[in-house]
């Protein structure tokens, strides 16, 4: 942990120093240095027997019935600046109502964008960033213009996946000049992110809008294997810290995306944190987490947009104890399909999610099986003065036997109505 925090702090401090130097040289020119402050609060009405996963429960949602009806979601500050004409820095820091009250970072990276000398376009990212996967989270500070709560897949990326390293992208048209086909190849190597999978195994999938920050500790549910005094607790703290480096081995994320004009795109990638499942450090295990991911976007008739993502993978820790599987060894799969349509001042989106965790190990009192689906209907409207209104209805049905450990029925039918007001202030018009 000490080693990773040093790395993170070094990256953060050097990025800020470079940014500070560039600001001093060029002044606060809005065309080069762009600040965005965005605050969001929600009115919520939750119908669920579960306790929020942030309070040690197994709810799929961020808020539960014990939360106040009015919640402060997030205050984001984003800086995006050109340190030189081809070197761009981006820093996202936020405070959350359900965090520890401090500012912390969700992403911070430098991107080198050399001016192309041929049809090959190269980009190189350095720092801490999300893997190139989500189709939903294209807004400021990794927010989504489509809905308030994100799909199960992208919520998991927000909870447990972040790369601390470098990502190279090569983009070029396919078939020469005048072609509307384009191919992107991307490959990232990263440190950190060795405990990713801890939450997915013990807490399961979620659908919400909360991003884990760099140094954050997330509560694990009060299930039997995590009770004080168990063997698991010899090396596992009662919380997860998904971004730590445990075994000092790098992981990778690599893939390709094909795109035809603004009509259709198809991306496929593989993530492998290459963690040693026998390694432990700082109260966390290394979880070998591997997944394949596919993302499809398409423009449909009637100005409809279609988005779909699919993911399948494994996460495992500990030694091999039976049938070739490790102490905790889970397979998982999730997918969603979203239809969205934008009018001049508002947007409507409908998303259907499907998610599953298959518990492949033989560890007693640790049933991590889960199967569920969700429907999310969102209305997002831009108001005057930088205000955005979101209204979202969500129903999540899930079956998770581990709920019985907490005295609940395995089946849960959770519903939520959420009205969110966001206010954005920036030194630029777009």
């Amino acid at each position, binding site marked *: 942990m000490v080693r990773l925090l040093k790395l993170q702090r070094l990256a953060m401090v050097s990025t800020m120093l470079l940014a500070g130097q560039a600001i001093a040289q060029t002044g606060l020119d809005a*065309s080069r240095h762009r600040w965005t402050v965005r605050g969001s609060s929600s009115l919520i009405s939750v119908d669920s027997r579960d306790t929020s996963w942030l309070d040690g429960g197994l709810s799929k949602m961020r808020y539960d019935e014990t939360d106040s009806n009015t919640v402060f979601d997030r205050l984001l500050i984003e800086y995006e600046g050109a340190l030189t*004409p081809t070197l761009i820095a981006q820093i996202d820091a936020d405070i959350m109502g359900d965090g520890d009250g401090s500012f912390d970072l969700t992403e911070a990276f430098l991107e080198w964008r050399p001016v192309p000398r041929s049809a090959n376009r190269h980009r190189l990212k350095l720092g801490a960033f999300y893997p190139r996967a989500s189709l939903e989270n294209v807004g400021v500070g990794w927010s989504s213009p489509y809905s308030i709560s994100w799909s199960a897949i992208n919520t998991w990326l927000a909870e447990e996946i972040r790369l601390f390293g470098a990502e190279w992208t090569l983009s070029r048209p396919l078939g020469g000049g005048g072609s509307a086909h384009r191919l992107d190849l991307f490959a990232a190597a990263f440190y950190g992110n060795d405990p990713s999978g801890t939450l997915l195994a013990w807490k399961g999938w979620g659908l919400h809008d909360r991003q884990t920050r760099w140094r954050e500790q997330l509560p694990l549910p009060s299930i039997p294997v995590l009770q004080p005094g168990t063997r698991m607790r010899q090396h596992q703290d009662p919380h997860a810290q998904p971004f730590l480096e445990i075994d000092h081995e790098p992981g990778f994320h690599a893939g390709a995306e094909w795109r035809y004009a603004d009509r259709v795109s198809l991306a496929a990638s593989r993530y492998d944190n290459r963690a040693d499942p026998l390694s432990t450090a700082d109260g966390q295990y290394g979880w070998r987490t591997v997944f394949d991911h596919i993302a499809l976007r398409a423009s449909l008739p009637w100005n409809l947009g279609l988005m779909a993502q699919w993911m399948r993978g494994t996460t495992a820790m500990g030694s091999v104890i039976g049938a070739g599987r490790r102490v905790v060894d889970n397979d998982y799969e999730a997918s969603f399909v979203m239809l969205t349509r934008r009018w001049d001042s508002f947007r409507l989106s409908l998303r259907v999610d499907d998610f599953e965790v298959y518990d492949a190990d033989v560890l007693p009192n640790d049933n991590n099986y889960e199967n569920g689906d969700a429907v999310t209907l969102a209305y997002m409207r831009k108001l005057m003065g930088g205000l955005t209104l979101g209204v979202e209805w969500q129903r999540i049905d899930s079956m998770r036997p581990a709920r019985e450990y907490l005295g609940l029925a395995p089946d849960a039918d959770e519903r939520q109505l959420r009205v969110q007001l966001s206010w954005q202030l920036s030194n630029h018009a777009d």
Partner: protein
Amino acid sequence: MSGQALRQISRAAAAGWLGVLICAAATANAATLTVAVTDRAGTPVSDAVIYAVPSHNARNDTATPPTAVMDQREKAFVPHLLVVETGTAVEFPNHDTVGHHVYSFSDAKSFELPLYSGRAHAPIVFDTPGVVDIGCNIHDHMEAHIVIVDTPYFGVMSGSDTAAIVDVPPGQYTVHVYTPRLPPRSQPAPHSIVITNSAAHIDISIEQRLRPPHGRTNRSLEWSAY
């Protein structure tokens, strides 16, 4: 209606007639050439440049062509397709609050206008005929095309049914079409036409399959994420 208003109207009418007479005199020895470029289905092709190259040496003036403008507004180049005569200087003003970094690696003109806003850079002179594809290094989705031609007689189909070239002197011409919706080597074959003093018109139908027009056909999806 007041007497003053009536006087203004009659003065405006007189000025209008005078204008028509002057125009008629000026164009007595030239014609307007209109060209309609359509695809296989008969739909006008939104992005196409037409230019008429005289077979005789029609040009006797060597005046520098006026400066042209490739604007940047709302993270898009305006126009998407610009046609200029060889030797034209093109200005690249940025009217956005965000900076743009304009570049091209095309054979006809390779250049770079490092990250700027407003009118920070001097105009670029395009002195070689050909097509220059331009982009923004900050916003990868921004693209535009500048077509440089060896003739002052050109026009653009941009959202209209025809392109018009005015003040074409009589003579024989070869009419070319260029559209970025086809690969450079598959452009439509040129047409020959003799221009007299009356208006002339050519219909050009493109039989090849065109790539989709530039710009967002569906704004429900955010494409520029990467």
